[in-house]
């Protein structure tokens, strides 16, 4: 055969930039690059010009300036003399707190509601369907506002606990006060020897784990099935209580008490946190319930039947066969619901919970007038949170993938 010229050695023509597959995509990308640069020039130019006209500049120096305002929930020490930067950190932590709490309770609510939606009990099924539809189809902002209004108007003010004939009383032997400003819980006070009690407690937690492993080993090695639930419960409480008694109650509780205007002492959970937390959980819980339901339904009936035919009891079927499979289906959408909780927590602003949007994107922005800087920083923070959550989600998904041919 005669060797023909390699077709790729044609001389370059301008039309090849358009019509030749090898250059075409480069050309398009080049044009896209130029378009991007042009857009940036346009936006940037406007920005610079507008700022100059308004006599403003872009600077993050304000983060080091004194904030001057107080924040009512401070996971780290903070007062009005601290900087705006520290105020933003407080806000960030508050965001993480409400998001974290929200994720936990939303999961619990969602799983319970999702499982109950599949219950053989007609009434329960309908109630759960009602819950899910009502909450899914009304904006979360309205729920936050409604629940906050309920908090404020239905719960008694601290005032109501006062006087000779108070109209409200504390719960659980005067240890918990539920008011429209928040919930006040007893706080542990670490007296002398409390380290020991804590030690005992940690030891008993470890004990529970060891006990459960032992029980499983017994089953696997000797075929003996040891009940674990009640022993675990006992292990959780008894050693600590014993230690308390023996050591003369080194860990005492500080009860909240009405002093002056408010309950003092104990742990305070702000009303705004509760409202936001509760609203986010119950709203997102409705979505999670649907995911859970879909996940369980995704495990085919044949799996349950096969397990049943092998003689497994319903509880075991759930634990050993259905749940492990359903989880693979449930977890990816669950993580996006966690992302949604985190993002929706920015609605804290509607109830005055001082999260990131309330501090950095709210008061700091207003007091310093650094709108562009604050909003950009705000978005950056949320982006980092979201991206890290999705990063872990991807890792999880990859490890959990079912083995296929």
């Amino acid at each position, binding site marked *: 055969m005669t060797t023909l010229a390699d077709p790729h050695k044609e001389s370059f023509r301008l039309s090849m930039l358009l019509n030749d597959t090898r250059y075409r995509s480069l050309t398009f990308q080049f044009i896209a690059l130029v378009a991007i640069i042009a857009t940036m020039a346009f936006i940037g130019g406007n920005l610079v010009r507008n700022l100059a006209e308004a006599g403003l500049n872009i600077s993050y120096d304000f983060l080091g300036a004194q904030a001057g305002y107080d924040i009512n929930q401070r996971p780290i020490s903070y007062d009005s003399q601290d900087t705006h930067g520290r105020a933003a950190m407080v806000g960030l932590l508050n965001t993480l707190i409400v998001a974290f709490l929200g994720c936990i309770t939303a999961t619990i609510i969602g799983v319970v509601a999702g499982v109950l939606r599949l219950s053989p009990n007609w009434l329960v099924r309908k109630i759960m369907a009602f819950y899910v539809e009502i909450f899914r189809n009304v904006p979360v902002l309205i729920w936050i506002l409604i629940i906050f209004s309920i908090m404020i108007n239905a719960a008694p003010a601290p005032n109501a606990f006062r006087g000779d004939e108070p109209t409200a009383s504390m719960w659980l032997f005067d240890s918990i006060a539920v008011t429209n400003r928040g919930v006040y819980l007893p706080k542990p006070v670490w007296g002398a020897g409390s380290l020991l009690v804590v030690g005992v407690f940690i030891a008993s937690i470890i004990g529970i784990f060891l006990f459960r492993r032992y029980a499983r080993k017994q089953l696997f090695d*000797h075929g003996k099935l040891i009940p674990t639930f009640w022993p675990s419960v006992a292990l959780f409480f008894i050693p600590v209580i014993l230690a308390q008694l023996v050591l003369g109650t080194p860990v005492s509780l500080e009860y909240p008490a009405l002093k002056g205007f408010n309950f003092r002492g104990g742990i305070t959970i702000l009303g705004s946190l509760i409202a936001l937390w509760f609203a986010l959980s119950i709203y997102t819980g409705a979505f999670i319930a649907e995911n859970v339901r879909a996940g369980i339904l995704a495990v085919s009936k044949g799996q349950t039947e096969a397990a049943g035919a092998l003689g*497994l009891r319903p509880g*075991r079927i759930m634990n050993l066969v259905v749940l492990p499979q359903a989880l693979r289906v449930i977890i990816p959408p669950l993580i996006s619901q966690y992302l949604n909780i985190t993002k929706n927590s920015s609605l804290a602003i509607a109830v005055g919970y001082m999260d990131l949007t309330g501090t950095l994107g709210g008061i700091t922005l207003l007091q310093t007038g650094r709108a562009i800087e604050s909003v950009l920083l705000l978005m950056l923070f949320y982006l980092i949170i979201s991206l890290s959550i999705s990063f872990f989600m991807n890792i999880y998904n990859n490890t959990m993938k079912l083995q296929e041919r």
Partner: protein
Amino acid sequence: MNQTSQMTVSDEVAIEITNMNKWYGTFHVLRDIDLTVQRGERIVICGPSGSGKSTLIRCINALEEHQKGKIVVDGTVLSSDLKNIDKIRSEVGMCFQHFNLFPHLTILENCTLAPIWVRKTPKKEAEETAMHFLEKVKIPEQADKYPGQLSGGQQQRVAIARSLCMRPRIMLFDEPTSALDPEMIKEVLDTMIELAEEGMTMLCVTHEMGFARQVANRVIFMDAGQIVEQNEPEEFFNNPKSERTQLFLSQILGH
């Protein structure tokens, strides 16, 4: 072959179904079923689609509730008493059309799950048994793979091994080969024949007439929820009595 198998049939009764009826809602699926299976007997059930074959099989295993009549398996009366159901289920193994292996567990774990949690067999022992049966179905080397990594025929053989690990005295098969490609059908049938030769009591819903001829003691033909005809395979195939049976056989063998 037929002869040898027949010899293993003992006089003990393995399953006794008397006047059993079942409804789905108002739909009468099973009507006045009477059936006695001796220990060691191998029964093939056939019949047109929707005739209630699967339902019958599943009733024996308490996967479905029956509403009238009596089912006695290995001396245990099947009632809604959970204890009895458990007892029966651990006596009776079942193979499904779609295998229903647990995709999140390895083959070995699939096989040891029930022995460990139901029979409370120590894990080690359970694994040994499992390997024994996996060898029997000729796939011990797949023990650590996941079901998704096996072919259909291999999966069905694992499903059989999984049932056998519970050391059942009776095996139920519901169209175990109908979801398989032709070359895989043979693998599975071979396994079943081997099982049959060892004297296992078997009830098998299948349309594999070759299999029926080779191993069955009795072929049962069902239609519209009733047992229409039953007979020894030779008689059944060569000399069907009922018109419906004739029609059915002409269709099925005409292929």
